[in-house]
């Protein structure tokens, strides 16, 4: 177990190094930020002075080494726009994103497992079709449009829920609903196919032969087996959660990282982009390790080695 964690941490470090490099390359490929930072009236000599002051005139490799040196000390430079430390800009906003994404993740899992179990336990084809078509309909609507529809209905028309910023419990409702419902159809399909696999397994016959009822066997015997592949799928879909956050944070004026990143990208604020990507990648890597550990705890057949 210790050995496993050590290996995984080494892998994680490598992953983060690769992400650091990739971020650097991609951000530099996106072009020169001076055109955006300076007013249109600026002539080219002044632009050159500005570029030099930011260190953008140095050879690419030198910039890369400086960047890596800084990254080791968690120093990603200062925001080209605001002048403050780039990492602070991200860390200040990280809790809002983590809260939104975390709650959405938990809600989406509970929602999917709850509905999935109801479908299995009732075994009603009609209910299944109803729930699944609802989820599919939601999946077919882009998150952006879905969020706006929620705002217009619950925010503007009924005025039940706030939709600007993060103020208290009720402000979570619509962003969480948007994010957590996006993957519902996918999760229900995964659960459905896993359940039908498990239900035909021989241990289910043993369970019935022991005197278990069908519902009891589904919950106690099949469910733990279904949970394993489900966790893997959920972990794989964390990326979608982050992509979804970008849209949701923008629409709901959420003070999180994702929206700040979009701003930073349009403004070519390299230090902020880099700090943000590294931060998100780190969270992602950690969550994936956790998902591995959780599924290995659930599946006795997997040895952590």
């Amino acid at each position, binding site marked *: 177990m210790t050995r496993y964690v050590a290996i995984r941490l080494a892998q994680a470090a490598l992953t983060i190094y690769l992400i650091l490099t990739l971020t650097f390359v991609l951000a530099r490929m996106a072009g020169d930020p001076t055109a955006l930072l300076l007013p249109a*009236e600026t002539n080219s000599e002044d632009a050159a002075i500005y570029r030099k002051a930011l260190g953008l005139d140095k050879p690419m490799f030198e910039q890369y080494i400086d960047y890596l040196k800084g990254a080791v000390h968690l120093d990603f430079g200062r925001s080209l726009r605001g002048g403050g430390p780039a990492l602070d800009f991200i860390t200040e906003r990280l809790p809002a994103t983590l809260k939104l994404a975390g709650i959405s993740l938990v809600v989406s899992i509970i929602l999917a497992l709850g509905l999935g179990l109801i479908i299995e336990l009732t075994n009603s084809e009609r209910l299944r079709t109803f729930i699944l078509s609802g989820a599919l309909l939601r999946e077919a609507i882009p998150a952006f449009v879905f969020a706006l529809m929620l705002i217009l209905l619950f925010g503007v028309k009924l005025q039940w829920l706030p939709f600007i910023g993060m103020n208290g419990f009720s402000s979570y409702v619509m962003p969480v609903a948007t994010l957590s419902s996006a993957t519902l159809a996918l999760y229900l399909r995964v659960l459905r196919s896993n359940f039908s696999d498990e239900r035909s397994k021989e241990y289910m016959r043993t369970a019935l032969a022991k005197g278990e009822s069908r519902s009891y066997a589904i919950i106690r015997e099949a469910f733990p087996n279904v949970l394993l592949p489900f966790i893997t799928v959920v972990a794989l879909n964390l990326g979608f959660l982050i992509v979804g956050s970008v849209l949701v944070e*923008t629409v709901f*004026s959420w003070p999180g990282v994702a929206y700040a990143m979009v701003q930073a990208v*349009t403004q070519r604020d390299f230090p902020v982009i880099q700090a943000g990507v590294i931060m998100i990648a780190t969270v992602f890597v950690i969550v994936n390790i956790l998902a591995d550990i959780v599924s290995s705890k659930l599946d006795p057949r997997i040895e952590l080695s």
Partner: protein
Amino acid sequence: MRSYNRRWIAAAAASIAVVMLAASCGGSSSGGGSSSSSDGPAVAADISVPLPAPLAVIDPTVDTAAGGTVYGVLFRSLVFNGLDGPVPALAKSWAISPDGLTWTYTLDTSLKFQDGSAFDSADVLFTFQKMLTAGNPHLGTLSIVASIEAPTPDTFVFHLKTPNAAFIILSGGKSIVPSDYYQSVGADGFSKSPIGAGPYKFDSAVAGGGVKVTAWADYPIKQPFKSIDFVPVPSPQAQIAGLQTGTLDVVANVAASQVETLKSDSKLKITETEGNNVAFIAFNTGQAPMSSLDFREGVDLAFDRDAMVKTLLSGHGVAAGGLITQPTIGYPDLDAPKYDATAAKAAIKKSGYDGSAINLTYPTSVLLNADLTAQAVASYLNDVGVKVTLIPLDYTTFLQQWAAKTIQGMYIMGYNNGIDADTIISSLYAGGSRVLFTDDAVTTAVALTRTTSGDVRVKALKALEELVMETKHYYAPLMMPNVIYASTAGLPFTPNAFSPMYAAPK
């Protein structure tokens, strides 16, 4: 980042429009009956205003972009640039040396900062020293400054490399920060609790890059609002929704297509002012056939600008005759070129254009209604025999190509006039980094606008604009959309083309 399929966006926009219509219809029926609570007495109110982008910092000495509106209420500058020209603010008066190279401001040292500390030339010196540091984005607009000095507590002097009559706009509009306070708390401390001399004081930060300000009791003029919450609300749809629910009080840049819907809501007021953003076509004159004056003239005559205003802006705008437009100081007010397809065809034929397709690049954002505008332009050009290939670019990519002068063929862009004509001149006429033609006559005409003042300068501006537009056709101006604000009815809200005017003008 991801790029979205345009058809999806169109479908999404259509469905949003439908839902929005439904929502607003319902809303207005419930609010029917007694209307017009608007135009009541101006009561001091607390208002919420959306910021399209979060503030990374609140520091006018290092940030040129995000905080414009906020800085306008928190800080004061040497002069107040009103529509009728500069008005004294922190400076009582100013004088220009005969050679136009020395600008001397006389400061009003009876004024104080919001923390009660006195104001003098040391504060101005500190502010401009910061802005003139290498790497500071303000350097771009202050590049003609050779040196600065503060000879006495109530005088401040700029020495320039070249004369420019519009320097009062450039230098006079910079927010001044209190030197002692800034140095004692440092840049980060200042950003967390900024102090200025403006009509509103910093109250508290709003989560996610917003700020709350309250009227400063010691400011010489009483303010229309008790407090203003600047809340980051990036999505335009959310801004409108916020306005409809009363969460927000003012929304700027309302789409023309939404005006009628919003007007039907008695709780809202629509304020429309002349705009200052001109959409135009520019030519890369280094290439054929754009190098031909006949070709450029032909293109200039090819558009029915009034029809474009009606269809593309739903009538909320005007046809443009030049790039320097009202209400900019010294605008020449040229008439829009007359639509004449026959003359256009003849001119293009005369130019020897071989009928091959020409690139027409445009940014997909910033330019209002970008895709539809580009398609309309392409269609008019096609009618007079000019074939174009549309090249949509995201704004930042466009900006880089634009700054690097690598755009081939022609491009469409929308550009904001400043309060003075020099904004357009330095960006698009005066050999700066975005000018795609070289013309000694234009250079001479530009110099004249910078070395003269008063009526002589107004004449010089008119001559320059006529030269660039009507004689040389270096640009084909298209139209200028109005600036449309929607606000809670009953607010003392009177914006102008350049500013929402949350602070009472002098």
